[in-house]
């Protein structure tokens, strides 16, 4: 069985900090487990997209090291011509609008990209199990609710990237 771990921006912000310590612990834990993290293009853009955020200690995220070491991989572009991807993203837009009590028009592709990537990985056979590591609860719930309706029951797991979860996988304090 091929399990693919998809990570959202929040995972890396949790590991941010001037001393790289938390980030390195995450790296070690994943390498020991033989796991790499797939990130949507959107997350890659978010991580590098705001020079103004430099002042925040948690903005210090040495994610380029993860690319070099090979345990963070930018996922393929989303293929909107794939009917499953476009349908699931459309459904996710409505689902997230409903969860967040917002108008459907203001929900963007950025909000549904995680769900779309999970669908694409499953549909193309790159994964038969996807774990979504994210702090985006509306998107996580959308994935868990919608993908089983398209034949992917028991193939998707939403894992909230809490401090406690990261402490568990790295077996260490994570403050």
């Amino acid at each position: 069985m091929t399990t693919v771990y998809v990570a959202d921006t929040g995972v890396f912000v949790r590991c941010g900090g001037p001393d790289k310590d938390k980030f390195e612990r995450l790296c070690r834990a994943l390498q020991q487990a033989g796991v790499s993290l797939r990130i949507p293009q959107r997350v890659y853009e978010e991580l590098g997209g705001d020079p103004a955020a430099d002042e925040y200690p948690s903005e210090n995220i040495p994610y380029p090291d993860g690319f070099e070491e090979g345990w963070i991989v930018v996922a393929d572009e989303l293929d909107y011509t794939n009917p499953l991807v476009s349908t699931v993203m459309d459904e996710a837009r409505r689902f997230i609008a409903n969860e967040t009590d917002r108008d459907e028009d203001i929900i963007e592709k950025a909000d549904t990209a995680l769900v779309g990537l999970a669908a694409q990985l499953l549909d193309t056979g790159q994964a038969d199990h996807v774990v979504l590591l994210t702090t985006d609860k509306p998107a996580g719930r959308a994935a868990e609710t919608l993908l089983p309706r398209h034949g992917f029951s028991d193939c998707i797991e939403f894992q909230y990237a809490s401090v406690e979860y990261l402490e568990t996988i790295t077996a260490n304090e994570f403050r």
Partner: protein
Amino acid sequence: MTVANIVDELDIPQGTAYDYVQKLEAAGLVEKTSDQRPYEYDAESLSLTLSTDGETQTITPALIAAVARRDEDEDIDVYIERHGLDGLAVALEYADEYVDGTVNHRIAARELDLSPLEAEIILQALEPVAKEYADAAA
């Protein structure tokens, strides 16, 4: 709560604690609830509303707790420097929603005019406060 409890909790000298409690009692913010020593005190629930230039801001206990964390959490300190206490108060409302799962950092970023990265940083920094005060309210 007794003065001895406060001394233990805050690690301040007994004389100082008595002094604070007397001032709070005189201001009507705490009330003596026993007639025998050691006296017990109860805090009145407090709501502060500040109005300046037509803008009104309610100072909630959660907001006070969030501001107090700026000493230990530099992300909060930077956010206050950049967006002011008003900005922090609004971010805290989003943090409540973030904990409830009714917003994500991307929607918060668009509505607060921040980058998604900055939004996620402040939402994570405020998450413990939002959780603590949501539990307290529940």
